[in-house]
């Protein structure tokens, strides 16, 4: 029973990964690609690791999977934020139809 629920969780995570990579392929801008793919792929990988924890239970492998969930949830937004900030500072243009750019306005005020 636990194994069945775990494999269903793993498949949900794989579907999230697929849509994240589709966003990485199809969206028009660096920032759009960054937000779509980072959120979807982080949640999908955490779902896969939680499925592994449900399959193995409270063994050493399951505890390692929980630790890896915490690590991925803490580090993936940090790396995505650093990449977006670096891209904006290196002068990558926004898409033509995008409406506002709050970070550039803040830099002008300072």
């Amino acid at each position, binding site marked *: 029973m636990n194994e069945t629920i775990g*494999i269903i969780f793993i*498949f949900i995570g794989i579907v999230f990964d697929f849509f994240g990579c589709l966003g990485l392929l199809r969206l028009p801008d660096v920032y759009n690609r960054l937000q779509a793919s980072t959120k979807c792929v982080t949640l999908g990988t955490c779902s896969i690791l939680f499925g592994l924890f449900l399959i*193995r239970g409270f063994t050493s492998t399951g505890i390692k999977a929980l*630790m890896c969930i915490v690590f991925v949830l803490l580090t993936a937004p940090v790396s995505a934020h*650093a*990449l977006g900030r*670096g891209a904006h500072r290196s002068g990558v243009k926004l898409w033509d139809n995008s409406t506002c750019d709050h970070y550039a306005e803040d830099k002008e005020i300072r």
Partner: protein
Amino acid sequence: MHRLFRWIIGFLILAIVTWVIFFVHLDSLLEWQSLLLKRSFLIFFMCSVFCLYRVLKGPTAADRAVAIDILGILIVGFCVILGVATRRDWYIDISIAWALQSFIATLALAKYLEGRNFDE
């Protein structure tokens, strides 16, 4: 000659994926679970092809850095699925180490994009 070489590489990859999906039997699982894991290998293959396309064709350097970051998080999940499919527990150690080195590599790439030095 060059184009022929590339076609041969593409057909080899397609043949390997087809063999994994249809002819490898994972005998430690039930039938539908084995089928689901084989389909998941195909979907992971497509995801990594998307990421590698963005690495090759990205207009700016930031696109390539984003694609490398996403590929690093994908490989963590792929190692976990390999561990479930083959019932070997040491794949989770590989995935933890890969998450760590992917995080550090992405931070270094972001610093490089900002145009500063590393020791600042």
